[in-house]
């Protein structure tokens, strides 16, 4: 499809659904930095790139050279990175075209993409505009569902921000093992939890882009120096004898009946293809996962947000008053409520006298949660549950939730994120209101190929 038409279509969708914070409108003129760097790095022989002319949208928190990248926040308005994130460099080298930056909860702080930066627009669900896209990568999932052209998105997950919106918008979303994909050029939310991963409508595209973005990066010391499998080889591979553990707690209290039914149909399908299923219990993860996740994520986030202070880049005001007065003014004026809440709690939980009781305690419970999963993977190839306990909620219902009730929505996704395990959300059908339902598969560290192998059969 012609790039002009793609950009036109994105603009049209955006007017109605708000999936982009920035669309690269200058893509066809050589004045665009993005296009310049994109053509410069395209393989010399036209048509050689594995992503040649494929449109790729990018979550706002991933730096794209010359394209406004603000992590969905007000405080980073007008920030134009002077470099590309490693994942961007890699897809550009394969001939991909970056079309724009997608809407998200500011800094990734949310499960519904309703915590957008001050004065920014909330993305609307592609199936029902009164409902949320999910978060925090809401815009990524929305445009992936709506685009009529071939499209892959690069998004990011800290506690479920890839699979949650993928589930609510009816697309595939894969969150890789922690360290599988370089985070260089990602605006950190919580460094020990952040992962960059793709969403797409076809598993072929997921496998294709995972082969390109995975691997060791000299610029990022937490990337894993492990060989990258040819993921596309697993698309056609059968699943006879594959052992799948059904997470017992994820089908109990608080899970929507229709979600349960559709996911159970998915399980039947896998069984018919030869997979062996059995129930497994993850009691610790189920009971303490949300609290452990939010405590650690807020502690790390509060340190990461310290650098946004109205100097060097992003929002600035007239330089008045002392250091502290100036920084406090800019930060108070530009951060949204959820950012302030997380900064305050994260700062508190790291304070002298409270650090052991909160931060260190949560880090210890994290160890126990990782052990719980590792024990399960000694027996199973994959674990299975619904992605979210319910379909995309309506905005008017989200408004009634307290922040804590909001966090509880992540009960099924925080576990694999805390343990750094790769996981995928796959469309599993629709409910009576024609809203999509997602099925989640979790694999052991660096076993992404098993997600692709089983996921492609659903």
């Amino acid at each position: 499809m012609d790039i002009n038409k793609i950009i036109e279509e994105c603009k049209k969708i955006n007017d109605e659904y708000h999936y982009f914070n920035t669309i690269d409108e200058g893509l066809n003129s050589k004045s665009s930095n993005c296009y310049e760097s994109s053509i410069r790095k395209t393989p010399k022989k036209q048509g050689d790139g594995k992503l040649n002319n494929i449109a790729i949208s990018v979550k706002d928190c991933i730096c794209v050279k010359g394209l406004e990248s603000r992590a969905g926040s007000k405080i980073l308005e007008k920030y134009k990175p002077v470099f590309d994130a490693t994942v961007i460099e890699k897809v550009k080298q394969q001939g991909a075209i970056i079309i724009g930056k997608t809407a998200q909860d500011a800094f990734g702080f949310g499960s519904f993409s309703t915590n957008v930066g001050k004065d920014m627009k909330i993305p609307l669900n592609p199936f029902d505009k009164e409902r949320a896209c999910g978060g925090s990568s809401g815009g990524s999932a929305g445009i992936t569902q709506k685009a009529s052209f071939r499209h892959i998105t690069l998004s990011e997950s800290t506690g479920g921000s890839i699979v949650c919106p993928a589930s609510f918008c009816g697309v595939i979303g894969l969150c890789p093992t922690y360290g599988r994909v370089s985070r260089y050029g990602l605006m950190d939310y919580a460094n020990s939890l952040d992962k960059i991963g793709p969403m797409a409508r076809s598993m072929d595209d997921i496998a294709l882009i995972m082969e390109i973005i995975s691997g060791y990066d000299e610029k990022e010391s937490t990337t894993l120096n492990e060989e990258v499998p040819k993921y596309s080889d697993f698309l056609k591979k059968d699943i006879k004898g594959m052992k799948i553990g059904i997470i017992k707690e994820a089908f109990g209290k608080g899970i929507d009946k229709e979600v349960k039914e559709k996911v159970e149909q998915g399980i039947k399908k896998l069984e018919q293809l030869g997979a062996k299923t059995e129930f497994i219990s993850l009691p610790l993860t189920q009971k303490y996962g949300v609290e452990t996740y939010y405590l650690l994520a807020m502690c790390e986030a509060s340190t990461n947000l310290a650098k946004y202070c109205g100097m060097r880049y992003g929002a600035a005001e007239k330089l008045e008053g002392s250091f502290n007065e100036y920084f406090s003014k800019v930060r108070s004026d530009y951060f949204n409520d959820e950012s302030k809440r997380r900064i305050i709690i994260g700062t508190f939980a790291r304070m002298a006298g409270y650090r052991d009781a909160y931060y260190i305690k949560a880090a210890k419970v994290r160890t126990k949660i990782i052990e719980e999963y590792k024990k399960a993977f000694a027996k199973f190839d994959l674990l299975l549950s619904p992605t979210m306990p319910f379909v995309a909620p309506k905005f008017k219902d989200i408004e009634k939730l307290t922040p804590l009730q909001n966090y509880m929505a992540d009960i099924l996704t925080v576990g694999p994120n805390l343990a750094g395990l790769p996981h995928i959300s796959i469309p599993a059908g629709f409910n009576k209101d024609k809203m999509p339902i997602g099925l989640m598969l979790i694999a052991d560290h660096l076993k992404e190929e098993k997600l692709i192998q089983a996921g492609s059969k659903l």
Partner: protein
Amino acid sequence: MKIDKELIEHIASLARLKLTEKEIEKFLPQLKEILNAFSKLDEVNTDNTQPSFHPVELKNMMREDRIKPSLTQEQALSNSKENKDNYFKGPMAI
């Protein structure tokens, strides 16, 4: 642990945030609810458990220190509104 207005204001000031009366009124019950939920972790026995600061085991990655091309001064300053003589300009330090 008593979570009150004074404590919230103190923590906010450590994080360089100045909250309005309205914000404090809104945040206080929310923060209490969240911190109360976090206290649930006390139930878990973690004697003899080491904390995990990463989900996978990471070794210290070292490499040779080499000089490579980096950003130009112009690029580094290109996003700042206030700069002078190739420096960032900030608020008064004293």
